[in-house]
């Protein structure tokens, strides 16, 4: 009888996050069946999906990835990365593939590399919208055909079906576009017959590396899956998984701590029980998986909504600090007058008062008490040049505007010359929807090459 026990080694919560090298070496000695790592997240904001680029530099990513490719060679098992380049766009997959090929040449390796792309063509998504195959999730923004037309990148989050297809190509390395964080880890154990609830639950526990242990920074975690449950063992000497650290991890970045929706169904951990096998290893059983029909995948998308220029001025003067809200109203009024006189249209000015309410905006309920405030003027318009034009228009006021016409002209502190900073394009996440698929592979593309 063949054993179905499946071990997945997770080096870190994401490529680019530091991990314990000694722990990785120990993990490789534990004979894992797969090394899996996540390469992205929406947590850094919409810019990365909007531009299809990574938040980490190529050189830093290449150095980290080369280490994992060396680890793969040592273990002799497949290496899988998903949501590459922060956003998982097709351009990010190409970027990662290019880097991977470069490393194979440098290492003198000949490998089979499979890419799984999850970028969605706008016309196909529009057709799906017309056909009623796109459904809003709770608290999704309203969308129309024009929303989709404006997107610079749309990705679908792959589940286990698509990752299993990629692994089944027999690749040494799988580079996947956007996937759910969990599917990367759950795919192999489920294809080998391990308990589905345990596979998805264990995947959720391990998707942030060692975050579900007493030493989150150690990163390296070994997950063992079998017919009835999973076992989590952190590979760092000084890290321990306890029933508390493991069960508490379902809270993390999850609106519902018991239910996790995934392509093809959902995980329910409300009946899971956590047993300490020793002081640093935990076994979990009782998690349940439910298939749901129709098969859906989640969509993520970003669109460009304008270009921003930002000016910052510092106000140390006690009189102005005490009346800072009034001063900002005067600045805004002056801007409206000047913009109208110059026929500068379609520029939105938002002023945030740093040291007052710049973090929580209208939800702020504390009174400011510091010795200085910063005034951050954010100009947003359809072009970079227009936003900068507007910022330059307000420059003299930021420096010198008196509270009332009767007081001496003040001068505030510009931290830079010029004080205007061009921030580039502003992107917005605009889809929080699911796409119904008749065939899980119909929105994903596999390609295999030999290096």
């Amino acid at each position, binding site marked *: 009888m063949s054993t179905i026990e499946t071990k997945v080694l997770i080096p870190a919560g994401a490529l680019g996050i530091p991990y314990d090298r000694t722990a990785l070496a120990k993990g490789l000695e534990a004979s894992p069946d797969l090394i899996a790592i996540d390469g992205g997240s*929406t*947590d*850094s*904001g*919409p*810019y990365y999906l909007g531009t299809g680029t990574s938040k980490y530099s190529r050189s830093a990513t290449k150095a980290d990835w080369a280490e994992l490719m060396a680890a793969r060679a040592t273990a002799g098992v497949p290496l899988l990365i998903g949501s590459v380049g922060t956003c998982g766009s097709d351009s990010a997959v190409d970027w990662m593939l290019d880097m991977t090929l470069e490393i194979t040449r440098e290492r003198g390796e000949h490998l089979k590399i499979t890419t799984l792309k999850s970028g969605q063509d706008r016309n196909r998504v529009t057709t799906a919208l017309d056909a009623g195959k796109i459904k809003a*999730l*709770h*608290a*999704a*923004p309203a969308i129309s055909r024009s929303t989709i037309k404006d997107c610079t990148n749309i990705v679908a989050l792959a589940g286990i079906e698509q990752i299993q297809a990629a692994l089944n190509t027999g690749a040494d390395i799988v580079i996947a576009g956007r996937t759910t964080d969990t599917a990367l880890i759950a795919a192999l154990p489920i294809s080998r017959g391990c308990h589905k609830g345990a596979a998805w639950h264990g995947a959720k526990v391990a998707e942030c590396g060692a975050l579900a242990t007493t030493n989150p920074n150690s990163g390296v975690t070994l997950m063992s899956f079998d017919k009835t449950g999973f076992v989590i063992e952190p590979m760092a000497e000084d890290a321990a998984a306890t029933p*508390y650290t493991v*069960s*508490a991890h379902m*809270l*993390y*970045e*999850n*609106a*519902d*701590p*018991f239910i996790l929706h995934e392509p093809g169904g959902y995980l329910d951990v409300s009946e899971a029980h956590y047993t300490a096998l020793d002081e640093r290893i935990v076994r979990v059983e009782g998690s349940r998986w439910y298939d749901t029909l129709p098969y859906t995948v989640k969509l993520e998308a970003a669109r460009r*909504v*304008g270009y*921003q220029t930002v000016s910052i001025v510092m106000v140390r003067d006690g009189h102005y600090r005490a009346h800072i809200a009034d001063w900002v109203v005067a600045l805004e009024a002056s801007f409206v007058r000047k913009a109208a006189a110059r026929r500068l249209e379609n520029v*939105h000015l*938002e002023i*945030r008062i740093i040291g007052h309410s*710049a*973090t*929580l*905006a*209208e*939800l702020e*309920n*504390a009174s400011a008490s510091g010795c200085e405030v910063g005034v951050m003027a*954010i100009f*947003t318009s359809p072009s970079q040049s227009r936003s900068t034009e507007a910022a330059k228009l307000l420059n003299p006021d930021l420096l010198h505007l008196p509270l009332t016409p009767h007081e001496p002209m003040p001068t505030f502190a510009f931290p830079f010359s010029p004080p205007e900073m061009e921030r580039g394009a*502003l*992107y*917005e*996440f605009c889809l*929080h929807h699911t796409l119904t698929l008749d065939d899980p592979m119909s929105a994903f593309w596999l390609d295999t090459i030999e290096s």
Partner: protein
Amino acid sequence: MASLGSIVRKIRSKNAGPFWLTIDIFCEDKTNFIHVCEGLQNTRIADLFNIEESMIQRFEMSQLNVIKISMPRPKIQGTAADTDMHGASFAVLLEEMEMPTTTP
């Protein structure tokens, strides 16, 4: 009276994707957990975040002594009006909320 942050172990807020915010209140022990569950009404949370009470999802997890509050994000993450990309600062609103002190 004492601030909620001063009577519990930890309060953290986090994005749960770009459209949702989730806040976890880690209580010290069972007594503390029951006290906070009773003292922290959803109406107060709704006022604090200026949202409809019906939009608040609340989970009282007695095994962990954790109260979890989830809601649509005050502003969608990264939009022009959003002021906190990772949503971590919203926890402060609950930390600074006044609560009756635990009776001995």
